[in-house]
């Protein structure tokens, strides 16, 4: 069952088909929001808003124009940008440790891992907005680089260049730590 089929099912009145869409895409969406620095509660709130917005405007989705994932992440990106802007007016929203799952650590020493994560969080926060979102979209395995370009509304070459620059900057930030 592809996404377009499920969308047709929902539009035809089978609301439970929407649950399959949610279950299928919730994980990459949370990964994207987590990378953007939204902690658990904020990420859940944004993910809910994204799916709700998707549901409300499902009638406007045209599978001939875009893949469902491209559409979903375009909406998520907009909502995340709005939320970031709103949060910026109230307070700075740094990328916090609470956005981080207890995943298998890259180093056996938890203190080293925590320090690396902190340094990387700071480096991510220092990335220009365009580099950050393009890079994070590329980290979501569901999206090809062409689809990232579609979400970002830019050329494939621009996407590659942004990813290249973002990775170089982040690697340099981690390398400083190791030196």
């Amino acid at each position: 069952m592809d996404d377009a089929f499920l969308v047709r099912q929902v539009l035809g009145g089978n609301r439970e088909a929407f649950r399959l869409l949610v279950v299928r895409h919730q994980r990459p969406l949370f990964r994207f929001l987590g990378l953007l620095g939204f902690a658990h509660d904020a990420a859940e709130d944004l993910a809910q808003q994204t799916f709700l917005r998707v549901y409300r405007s499902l009638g406007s989705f045209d599978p001939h124009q875009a893949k469902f994932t491209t559409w979903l992440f375009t909406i998520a990106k907009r909502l995340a940008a709005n939320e970031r802007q709103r949060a910026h007016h109230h307070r700075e929203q740094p990328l916090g440790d609470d956005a981080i799952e207890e995943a298998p650590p890259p180093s056996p020493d938890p203190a080293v891992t925590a320090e690396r994560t902190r340094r990387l969080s700071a480096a991510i926060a220092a990335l220009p907005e365009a580099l950050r979102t393009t890079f994070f979209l590329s980290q979501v395995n569901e999206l090809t680089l062409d689809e990232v370009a579609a979400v970002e509304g830019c050329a494939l070459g621009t996407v590659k260049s942004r990813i290249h620059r973002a990775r170089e900057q982040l690697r340099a930030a981690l390398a400083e730590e190791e030196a």
Partner: protein
Amino acid sequence: MDRCNETQETIVAGQPLSGDLQRHAAACARCTAVAASYSLLDATLQTFAPTVPDGFADRVMALVAAEGAPGWVGRWFERRPIQLALAHAAALCAALNVVWFVVRVFVADVALGGTP
């Protein structure tokens, strides 16, 4: 040197290395160092992954249930059938204009004894 460039560009871009490039990276000290520094980055990035909270889909579906049927909230003129209808209407208008022009300029002149 070209092999080093190709290998390092692929690593920096975050793309998987082909078999050839993997073999080169394993044998080349500089490429090995670049690969190691980027694998540290990739491993650290893996820690930025919030889990999906239990019952998330249920909560979304509860919100959806309160919404009623999914609707059309986009701009009406972006809808494909509307766009097709507008395109056909525009084409029809253009055709009618041509006919109207021909009738007025040519047929009327002929009727009055003019030269088309």
